[in-house]
């Protein structure tokens, strides 16, 4: 996963997004490697155009579907769906319009903090919200991540 290039592309295109999932955990001190970049994105029409333009050079297609299945990557496609599991030249990128336990992009953004990473300022969920989201998602892989995240939260809590 070429996460640096992906983050640069999104930020430089002015896409309104916040990093969630495994890379969010890493930014908070998590020690598990992740294979894809999960982001929650604004559904504002202008943002959908920016998002489509930002990822277009990396040839997004829906992950897990036959490679020869026609797929048009543009703002209209983004408008007609909400969550997209993409495979790109940079690796897997998951786009989510809402996050379990938190809500839509506005709620997710309100639960996010700014971090300077890869020479850019990027939004990512705060640690408590990441834990809340993982608990609400309830999948085995989310629940498996909870002990580490809870431990990190406790280690960082003030006296």
């Amino acid at each position, binding site marked *: *996963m*070429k*996460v*640096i290039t992906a983050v640069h592309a999104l930020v430089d295109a002015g896409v309104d997004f916040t990093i969630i999932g495994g*890379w969010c955990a*890493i*930014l*908070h*001190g*998590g*020690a598990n*490697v*992740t*294979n894809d970049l999960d982001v929650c994105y604004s559904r504002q029409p202008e943002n959908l155009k920016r998002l489509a333009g930002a990822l277009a050079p990396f040839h997004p297609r829906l992950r897990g579907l036959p490679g020869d299945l026609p797929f048009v990557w543009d703002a209209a496609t983004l408008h007609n769906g909400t969550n997209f599991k993409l495979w790109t030249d940079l*690796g897997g990128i998951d786009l989510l319009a809402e996050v379990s336990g938190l809500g839509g992009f506005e709620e997710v953004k309100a639960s996010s*903090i*700014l*971090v*300077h*990473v*890869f020479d850019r300022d990027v939004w*990512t969920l*705060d640690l408590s919200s990441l834990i809340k989201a993982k608990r609400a998602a309830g999948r085995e892989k989310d629940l498996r991540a909870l*002990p*580490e995240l*809870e*431990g*990190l*939260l*406790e*280690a*960082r809590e003030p*006296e």
Partner: protein
Amino acid sequence: MEGMRELRPLTAAQLARAEERLRNPRAGSRIEAAQRFGVDLTLLMEQLRLSPAERARGMEEVAQAAEQARGAARRKRI
């Protein structure tokens, strides 16, 4: 940008407190639960010593290396 919350590197005092908690987990704490679950607390200590940017850079290198190793393994099987 005023009032905006930022994820910053831990201060020396915050890091010392975090390391102490991770090195000697309190009975019944969430850190002790993590340890019992199998989380390697020493790895968390190492990560917390880094800035968020350093954590991300390091993990990107690990992810790339893992991808290369997987690619090499696939090629060997073919």
